[in-house]
């Protein structure tokens, strides 16, 4: 049994459903069996799955689908709607205390990624919300945890407050608050030690800290790879400490993150942030609808666009559009484009967001970042005239370019072919953009 992502599983299931004109109760049941299996393999808690399947089946069999012209799509829609509902319908924007300092406490099991999450949040608030955060190191148990936060803080350019590992965590947190007030920091993020939800002493310690600090938010940090036990953990932290939201980490792995669904379902608390990589910038707001789309193989176009907007230079983009329209797209532009795409992050992550690209079928992602370096070398070995007009690149020029860039002629050929294809594709996109809707639609009544 090969492991396949939930996306592929569901795609397969619905392909079967799509093939039929009308759906019988039996079809729906069969489809749901596969959905159940897929959700369980994605680590969604089995009680949540039961509930989910029942709801979808009720809606699907209850006529809504039968009368629809495209029953398969209707089922997909229902599954997606229910998934979104399970995960919370809207992304939650960060909320800051209106009076003074916003206090955020991070709690969770060992190894969930609290320290990294703390640094990422701090960086995010500074960059996106214009805040000046302070990190407070309250993990007095794990060897070198305080040092780790200091190093992370340094990388993020955020100050870190610590008092060694001798004091009581609640007192350190208090002192951290005072320090923040003194230095005009307006967000305090408190990193705590990882602990088991059944460890009474350590849970009591967290409770004490919460009472002393009175945080605006307590976030439970949950590893996206967590299995069925996620519900127990979330339930325990919520009932004993009380949490306000969830920080889902390690979403850059290939786990489907079913834990996100489970945890939301048992605590009723929303996932607020997701961690998507090793770097301090690798943090995103959680978008339930996008996540549902991703799970269902509809791609995550919105995140892709957002990433593109962040990393693309607006001026260059406008210039590119102009060139595309006038069909002057050159190899220089091609290279520039590649560089910009690279700015968006690791290629395999970006690929995962594009609808229709089936990661499982492509095998382990074999897109090598080194490949891009070769492309760069090849283009750099061309003369300006060649870059502007690749059609002049004859056999002997190809030989020279290959020698100059340390590649083989086949690689040069492949690149030129790719370029030609891209140019064609770009032209098509440009044509599409010339439709009647140009710019923002105006208000018809004003």
């Amino acid at each position, binding site marked *: 049994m090969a492991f396949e992502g939930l996306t592929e599983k569901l795609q397969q299931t619905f392909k079967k459903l799509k093939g039929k004109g009308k759906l019988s109760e039996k079809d729906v049941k069969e489809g749901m069996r596969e959905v159940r299996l897929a959700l369980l*393999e994605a680590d969604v808690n089995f009680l949540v799955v039961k509930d989910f399947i029942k709801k979808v089946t009720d809606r699907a069999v209850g006529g809504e689908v039968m009368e629809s012209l495209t029953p398969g799509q209707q089922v997909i829609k229902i599954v997606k709607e229910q998934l979104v509902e399970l995960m919370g319908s809207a992304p939650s924007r960060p909320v800051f205390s209106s009076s003074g300092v916003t206090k955020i406490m991070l709690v969770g099991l060992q190894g969930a990624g609290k320290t990294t999450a703390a640094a990422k949040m701090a960086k995010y608030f500074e960059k996106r919300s214009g805040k000046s955060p302070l990190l407070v190191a309250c993990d007095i148990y794990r060897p070198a945890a305080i040092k780790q936060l200091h190093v992370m803080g340094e990388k993020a350019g955020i100050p870190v407050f610590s008092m060694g590992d001798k004091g009581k965590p609640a007192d350190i947190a208090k002192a951290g608050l005072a320090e923040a007030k003194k230095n005009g920091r307006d967000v305090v993020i408190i990193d705590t030690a990882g602990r088991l939800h059944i460890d009474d002493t350590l849970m009591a310690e967290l409770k004490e800290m919460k009472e002393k600090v009175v945080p605006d938010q307590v976030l439970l940090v949950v590893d996206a790879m967590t299995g069925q036990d996620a519900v127990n953990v979330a339930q325990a932290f919520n009932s004993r400490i009380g949490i306000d939201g969830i920080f889902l980490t390690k979403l850059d792995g290939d786990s489907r993150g079913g834990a996100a669904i489970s945890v939301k379902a048992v605590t009723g608390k929303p996932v607020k942030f997701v961690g998507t990589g090793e770097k301090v910038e690798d943090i995103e707001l959680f978008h339930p609808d996008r996540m549902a789309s991703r799970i269902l193989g509809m791609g995550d176009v919105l995140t892709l666009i957002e990433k593109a907007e962040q990393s693309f230079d607006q001026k260059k983009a406008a210039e590119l559009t102009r060139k595309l329209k006038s069909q002057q797209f050159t190899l220089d532009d091609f290279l520039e484009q590649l560089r910009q795409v690279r700015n968006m992050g690791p290629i395999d992550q970006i690929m995962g967001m594009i609808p229709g690209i089936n990661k499982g079928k492509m095998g382990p992602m074999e897109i090598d970042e080194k490949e891009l370096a070769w492309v760069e070398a090849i283009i750099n070995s061309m003369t300006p005239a060649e870059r502007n007009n690749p059609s002049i690149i004859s056999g002997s020029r190809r030989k020279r370019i290959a020698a100059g860039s340390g590649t083989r002629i086949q690689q040069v050929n492949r690149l030129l072919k790719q370029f030609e294809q891209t140019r064609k594709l770009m032209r098509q996109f440009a044509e599409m953009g010339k439709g009647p809707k140009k710019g923002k639609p105006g208000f018809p009544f004003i």
Partner: protein
Amino acid sequence: MQERQPGLIPRFMEGLKKSREDIRKKVDRVLSLANKPDPEMLEELEEALITADVGVGTSLEIIEALNERIRQDRSLTGEGVREELKSIIREMLDDERTEAVPEDTATVILVVGVNGVGKTTSIGKLAAHYKHRGKKVLIAAADTFRAAAIEQLEVWGQRAGAEIIKHSEGSDPAAVVFDALGAARARNAEVVICDTAGRLHNKKNLMEELKKIQRIINREAGDCSRETYLVLDATTGQNALVQARMFKEITDITGIILTKLDGTAKGGIVLAIKRELDIPVKYVGLGEGMEDLQPFDGKAFAQAFLG
């Protein structure tokens, strides 16, 4: 624990109470009826296995095997069914205790895994374990990536009384391992344990780096016996199977260290891993203390699993 939270579906809470129960209690409940086994009982047992992260496929297989035994012995009731289930799980895990380090040859142990599973802590405990058995232990601090990983390992090294070979943060991990093996030869160390940075198994470049480390060990470790342990967090779900598969492709995994078994997670995924990839569990982590790493015992595991 009986607090009800507003806004939650009552049916769901009802269900949760059930899942909060330990799998053992659940099995108790199913089997206590002393009834003849019926399809409903089997289904509930299957659910119990799924709740323990055994996975759908493996759970089904276990239940089918159980059903076969029930068919063969129609006199089985509750307690008998439990014993059969236990023995199936035990057999799956190869009921034999395995001690990794042979008495007479030196051993090099490479420790790998994704982020946050407890590699560094496990290494500290492993070092103490071998030290306790009178071995000279050397640790290679080859997690040069994570902030303060080297410092963390140093604390563990001090506690265990093991020497650490380290470079600075950000240096080439393969070079650290190379140096450690050289130092081990010079100082006649009997056990060398190599820490590595946590890496998600789907990151190609990081996995390539690991391949290089394994290559260095294979080349430099001479006559030493070699072990590569994959550290798995018992809390991890089905993704652990993917982790095991990918790490096995890159390195010569010889065993698993299953950590954080002192929580409520049961680590049932090791059954699926054993079944699919035939990788045995060698040690289990049961707490934060120095002595909380113990050699794996299939019998005890099955016992703890089902009561």
